[in-house]
Structure formats: structure tokens, C-alpha cells
């Protein structure tokens, strides 16, 4: 069985006088992997590199047997063809589109956004699954934190991604909501049998999701 994530990358990031070196090497066959570490350790850069939003200087990224990036072969599959579902820390919902349009966003690849009343069956299914039907016509700023997260998850899942990449998925939520949304996500992942890679600095996320736990510090995996 090939590894879910086989990542070996180097990247030097400069911002002003500061210089940060990312030198990662990890391989995981688990369905659920959590990368845990303090902020500034390179967690977000790691996730961005896997998703194709950041180009490493060297190395390779192989996911489920498919090479997505290989510096030696000058292979760099563009982000849009990598097939990941990405949950951003602040969810990055499109503020000019309603919940329905946000969820349907990735179903259409053309130059026009889906219409406000878009009603593809997949969209309806996720609206129901996440109990978002009542707010389907609302814009993201009108939603509660939990609804926002569900919308972002639905938007990522409607494309049937090969794996979910989660960036601090519960950091933007109230503490009492956090526990509930963790359970929801765990149940969902079990049901869909979709692999995930989560980055977090919250030990509870690590305990809850980490079948494989990787510690990151100063741009390197520690264990």
C-alpha cells in the first residue's frame, strides 16, 4: 500500500531581514495525520506546499502514489488539479456569494459564479447534511461560527477531494463549540473514509484526530 502522504521538501522563505528554513521529511500511511507545533514552526507553509499554493525549492511530494511535485523532474501539478479539499483557518468563504453559491463554487470551472439559486443535487445534499438549508441564501458574514465552518467543509467536500487538508480548523470557534465540531468532523471523516492531514497548535486536536502524530518545530519534523 502506498503512503497517503510522502513529503520531502525544502523551502527558504524570506520576509525582510528574517529568514525561515523549512526542511520537511515525513511519510504516513494513516487515514488521519496531525502535524502539531507552535505557531511560526512552518505548519501553514507545509500545508500550502502540499496543496500547491507554495512552490518548494527542492524535494518531492507524493500523495496516494501520485507525484504532485518533483523538483528534479520540474514537475509541479497546479493547485487546481491536485484535487484536495482545503479548510482554511478563517475558512476563506467568498463574502460576495451566499452559502449555496459558496458550496457550489468548485462545481463550475468557468468564468461565471453559480447563480444565487443554484440547486445542483450535490449542493442540496450537503446543505441538508450540514443543516444549512435555513441559511442557504445568506452571506457568510451573517452566519454563526459553526455554520461558517460547515459551509467551508461542504464547499471542500462537494468536489469529492482525494484528501482533506485542515488548517487549525477549530481555532476560530468558541471553546464550547469546538468540542461539538470536533465530534462532527470525526464522525464525518469516518463516514466518508477520506484521509486527512491537519495542522494545529491545540493539543486537544492532536488527541482527538492524531492516528499519526508529527511534531514540528523550526521547520523540521521532530518525531
Amino acid at each position, binding site marked *: 500500500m502506498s503512503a497517503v502522504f510522502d513529503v520531502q521538501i525544502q523551502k527558504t522563505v524570506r520576509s525582510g531581514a528574517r529568514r525561515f528554513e523549512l526542511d520537511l521529511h515525513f511519510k504516513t500511511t494513516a487515514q488521519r495525520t496531525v502535524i502539531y507545533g507552535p505557531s511560526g514552526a512552518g505548519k501553514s507553509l507545509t500545508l500550502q506546499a502540499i*496543496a500547491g*499554493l507554495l512552490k518548494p525549492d527542492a524535494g518531492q511530494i507524493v500523495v496516494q502514489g501520485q507525484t504532485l511535485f518533483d523538483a528534479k523532474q520540474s514537475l509541479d501539478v*497546479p493547485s487546481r488539479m491536485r484535487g484536495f479539499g482545503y479548510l482554511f483557518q478563517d475558512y*476563506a468563504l467568498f463574502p*460576495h456569494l451566499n452559502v449555496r453559491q459558496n458550496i457550489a463554487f*468548485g462545481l463550475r470551472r468557468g*468564468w461565471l459564479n453559480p447563480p444565487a439559486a443554484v440547486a445542483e443535487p450535490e449542493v442540496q445534499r450537503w446543505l441538508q447534511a450540514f443543516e444549512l438549508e435555513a441559511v442557504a441564501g445568506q452571506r457568510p458574514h451573517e452566519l454563526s461560527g459553526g455554520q461558517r465552518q460547515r459551509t467551508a467543509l461542504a464547499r471542500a467536500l462537494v*468536489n469529492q477531494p482525494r484528501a482533506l487538508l485542515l488548517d487549525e480548523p477549530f481555532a476560530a470557534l468558541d471553546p464550547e463549540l469546538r468540542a461539538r465540531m470536533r465530534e462532527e468532523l470525526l464522525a464525518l471523516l469516518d463516514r466518508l473514509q477520506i484521509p486527512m492531514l491537519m495542522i494545529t497548535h491545540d493539543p486537544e486536536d492532536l488527541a482527538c484526530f492524531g492516528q499519526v502524530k508529527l511534531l514540528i518545530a523550526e521547520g523540521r519534523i521532530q518525531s
Partner: protein
Amino acid sequence: MDAAWVPLLLSLKVAGCATLLNLFLGVGAGFALARYRFPGRDLLDAVLTLPMVLPPTVLGYYLLVLIGKKGPLGAWLFDHFGIQLIFTWQGAVIAATLVAFPLVLKSARAAFEGVDPQLERAARVLGLGEWAVFFRVSLPMAWRGILAGVLLAFARALGEFGATLMVAGSIPGRTQTLSVAVYEAVQAGQDDTANFLVLITSLTCILVLLSAGRLAPARPLA
């Protein structure tokens, strides 16, 4: 008084064409300056903003040198296509476009810089190509700010005098725009015509500014 409508219509035509051109040029350049880092970006921004601060006569002179009969571009156009831009309304469009361009550029750059790059990344991961990201995320988020700048550019193009006079001259009915007609009317002592022209110019510009003002406090959640 009928004669007054001729320069007004000509001015609207020239300003309209110039604004349409600037919509593409200014939005394109503004997006490039906002999103891409390349050597000489600040210099390019300064050069592109120059028409805002240079005297219009200087701009007119530059244009004459470039697109005049002996200018490199002007000679090429004439030799290959028989096109002559000097003393034509198309020449006036080029002058107005140049003068008003920085207004669209500045507002477009600021508007695009106000769009969270995270949203564009989210769209890419969801499977969109770069053009689709632009038309479905960047542009809809920035259009209010851009439109305010476009309206200001229209008003600026409508009032263009110096560069237009140098490039297109003052041929009544052909290149004599509103602002040039005002000057000619005052010079000729035709106070009635001058009054009327000044009044409609002012009214048009107030209308444009009112519209721009309604758009300017750009609500990001358009």
C-alpha cells in the same frame, strides 16, 4: 445655441471611448501591480502615474513626438495603414486616455490590494484557473473601488484641455471638444455660448462626482 450640442456630444464620445480603453488598461495594470512582484515595479508605478502630475501640455508634446507624422509610431501607422491620428477625434481619445489613466490605475490597484489573497488561493484549490479566479473572486470583490475610479477618469477625460488641444487641435465639429469650445467662445467674445457650455460641463461633472461619491466608500460585501 445648436452649435453647443456638437462639442458636448463630441466630448461625451471622446471621454466615453477613453474611459472604455482605461477600463481595460487601468484594471489590467492595477491588477498586475497589486498581485505580482517584479523588479522595477515601483518605477513602473511611478511612470504610469506620471500623467497625473505632468502638465497636460507636456503630455501633449510627448504624444506629438510619438504619434505625429514623423514620430516612430505615427510614421509606422501612416506607412502601413494610412492612419493619421493628429488632428482627429481618435487623437483626442488617445490624449484623454493618457491623462485619465492614472485615476483608474490607482483605484484599481488599491481595490485589488484590498482583496484577501486567501480567497484567491481558496478558489485555486477548488479547481479554478487563473482567469476564472480573476473574474469570479478578484474582480467582483474589487469592482466598487474600480468603478469609483472609472467615474473620476470619465470626468477627467471630459474636462481634458491641454493635451487634447495639442494633439487634436480645435476643428469645430471634428475635434473641438467642450473644454476647447469654451476657450474658443471666450476668445471670440461669444459670452452666451460660453455660459451655456460652462453650465452643461459643470452639471455633467457634478453628476459624475455624485455617482462616484456613492460608490467610493467601497463596501467589501457588494
